[in-house]
């Protein structure tokens, strides 16, 4: 469950980096036109992913503890009081 939810978070940084890379490539201007249109489309979709992530997300709280066998485990964490 938590593994699934972490994917978009991990995606954020790689999406942003890929986006920056695409902009850089396009700004150098030595990409063929057709390819640059593909890159443009990919870039716009990445930008959307990034923006969606930034706008929608809500702080996720976890607690690092140990299970009965003494193995490290992440637990859901309640919002603190106050």
């Amino acid at each position, binding site marked *: 469950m938590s593994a699934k939810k972490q994917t978009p978070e991990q995606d954020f940084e790689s999406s942003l980096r890929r986006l920056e890379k695409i902009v850089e490539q*396009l700004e150098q201007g030595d990409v063929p036109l057709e390819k640059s249109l593909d890159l443009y489309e990919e870039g716009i979709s990445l930008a959307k992913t990034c923006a969606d992530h*930034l706008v929608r997300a809500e*702080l996720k709280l976890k607690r690092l503890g140990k299970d009965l066998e003494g193995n490290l485990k992440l637990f859901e964490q309640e919002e603190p009081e106050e």
Partner: protein
Amino acid sequence: MAAESPILTVTDLTRQIKQVLESGFASVVVQGELSNVKRAASGHLYLTLKDEGAQLSCVLWRSRASGLSFVPEDGMKVVATGRITVYEPRGQYQLDIISIRPLGLGELQAAFEKLKEKLAAEGLFATERKRPLPEYPATIALVTSESGAVYHDMLTVFRRRAPSLTVILRPAKVQGPGAAEDIASGIADCNALGGIDLLIVGRGGGSLEDLWAFNEEIVARAIASSRIPVISAVGHEVDFTIADFVADLRAPTPTAAATMAVKERAVLLAAVRAAVTALRESVQERITDSRRSIAHLVRSYAFNRPIDAVRQSSQRFDEAVRSLKTALEHRFALTRAAATALEKRMASLDPRLVLKRGYAIVSRNGTYISARADLHVDDLIDCEFRDGAVRSRVLEKK
């Protein structure tokens, strides 16, 4: 006494005492004054903790003695953490010290300077050792107390600046006996878990003694060996701890640590928007460029030759169509004139025209009669005039 007690050997009794003591005092924290401090040739440290009413034999094994941040001396007030063990051959119990720290401001200050000097000499504070903080941390772990305002304050900052974050709390004791060990194992746990981009280790303000755990060598070592970059955030702006020197970044307060850890969402959004603008502009530019070069090509002589050819043949075609049309129209006109003439001639042959001049057509049963001989008396004949017909009977042949 009730039942008769079984007779034990000294070894049996001692073993039972050992079990009771060692399980009952597996983790104790005790304060007292040092006396009889002796360093054995083996490197182990033997000492006695005492106060007005009692004394306790203690041992600090070489492995731990070498990690001490101060030099234990007789008369020094200390707090020791450890477990009671029984040494069977001599029937003695003792405290196996796990950690020991000075108690009292003077001693603390001295210990602080001593450890700082030692770790600095090892190069633990060196700038080259500092790891860069992640630019876009997605998961941040906090090693701090859950109950303090610090956790709450940091969450407030994160919620405002970077609500897409995952925040993992590793609750840790941040003051008192066992705090340093808990903080150190918290840092180790976070490293063992994996998937964490940044660690913030800290606590709120307090006295030098309250903050002491962050001046312990075990914490300094844990920070130094962390694979995850560490921000230290201990106390207030004026408080400097050993942890601050070892950490990759020292934040003046926990709230500042949270602020330094993450970029503001608005800044990231602006970066994304700027990327989109750059994308649009560069592609727009490419399209404009391409359009310009296409226009240039279209205007070029080589490109216009085939167009000229097309234009010429289309002109020829137009001409052909035009002359064809003229020819056809001429034919039509001729045909139309011939048809009109024919019509006129046909009209002049129409038998009905004579009726207008006063003649009548005689027929019998639909057969025209043009001779007297064809008729007999009493035949019924039709006489057709210009305005209609009458039926008559032949009365006689004259």
